[in-house]
């Protein structure tokens, strides 16, 4: 193997496709957020919910993804979830109120009570979803699952939905088969992070850590699994 020649070739290849790699660098996290939103929708379908996508009025045939804190939710697509009399909505990059103070946080995918996020612009400015309307949420990282990432995620849960780390999850939440607060990651467990996650149930921590999310999504597409968040082995093999 001529490593010098390969290195020179790769250097030329990266230069030739520089523009594509710049786009990739900008879009990497956004693509993952889209994938997790799709995974969330499929999870609820698996749980017996009817799933319907509602696109903005201006672009009724286009799924428009919100990619950051800026922009009003009515200008982006939402996913309506309904089962019997229970109706909810999933929103990408949703601003939500803290459980403790007036802090606002942006969750990658937020599931809220239906009707709690306006569908069109209002005279009164819309600030964020109230904490009581936010039912659950999912975060996504293009990283390995490492111990400090887990600690950071639990910090987010503590600020937004502390009931999932202090053993006060309502019976209603469980009866409605909601997704527990979820961290999806592109990489596998690293270091001793698997040991940390395995100990969560014994500590009363109710969250989902979906490592290898890209693999889970591939398995979902291939019909090998029904939810990318349910099965412990979902992220192991394509």
């Amino acid at each position, binding site marked *: 193997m001529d490593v010098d020649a390969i290195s020179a070739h*790769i250097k030329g290849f990266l230069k030739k496709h520089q523009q594509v790699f710049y786009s990739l660098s900008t879009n990497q996290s956004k*693509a993952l957020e889209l994938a997790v939103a799709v995974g969330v929708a499929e999870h609820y379908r698996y749980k017996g919910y009817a799933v319907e*996508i509602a696109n903005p009025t201006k672009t009724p*045939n286009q*799924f428009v*993804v919100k990619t950051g804190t800026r922009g009003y939710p009515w200008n982006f697509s939402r996913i309506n979830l309904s089962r019997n009399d229970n109706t909810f909505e999933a929103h990408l990059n949703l601003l939500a109120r803290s459980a403790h103070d007036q802090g606002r946080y942006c969750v990658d995918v937020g599931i809220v009570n239906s009707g709690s996020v306006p569908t069109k612009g209002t005279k009164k400015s819309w600030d964020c979803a109230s904490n009581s309307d936010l039912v659950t949420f999912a975060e996504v990282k*293009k990283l390995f699952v490492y111990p400090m990432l887990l600690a950071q995620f639990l910090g987010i849960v503590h600020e937004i939905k502390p009931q999932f780390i202090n053993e006060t999850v309502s019976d209603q939440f469980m009866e409605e088969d909601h997704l527990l607060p979820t961290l999806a990651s592109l990489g596998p467990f690293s270091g001793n992070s698997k040991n940390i996650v395995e100990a969560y149930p014994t500590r009363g921590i109710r969250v989902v850590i979906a490592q290898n999310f890209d693999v889970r999504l591939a398995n979902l597409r291939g019909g090998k699994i029904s939810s990318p968040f349910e099965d412990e082995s979902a992220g192991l093999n394509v």
Partner: protein
Amino acid sequence: MSLKLLSDALESLPYSLKEQVLGYARSISEAAPEIFKEAGVRRDNKTEDTLVFLAGMKKLFSIVDSNYWVIDNAGAILEKEQSQFSVRIGGSDFSRGGDYLSKLDMIRKELNSYFIEQGIADLIESRNYSEIVRTIQNGR
């Protein structure tokens, strides 16, 4: 030396991607003593440099490949389950068959073809670094 060759090759890669590739290669460099020990082969600089360079190539390919498949898989599910054929994120068209995904597919295939041409595609795909070290030392 082990990271220098890789770092030079990645010269025109955007910073965040370069850091992902170098970070991964660095972790393999740090794990090298253990990898050689597990492979049961004598550690030498040339093999270690090749190992670290290949780790960088694996990460580079995995970034392109996983990004392509994440978007394609999400798009396929949206199409099948929701009849959503058009996906926009910010100013970019993320639809299957759209410009961005087509370009990702093109560089993914070009990179893979080059690795096949060089006879290293199996090493890029392998998850077993001990096996990779043994293959390098056997003269590949």
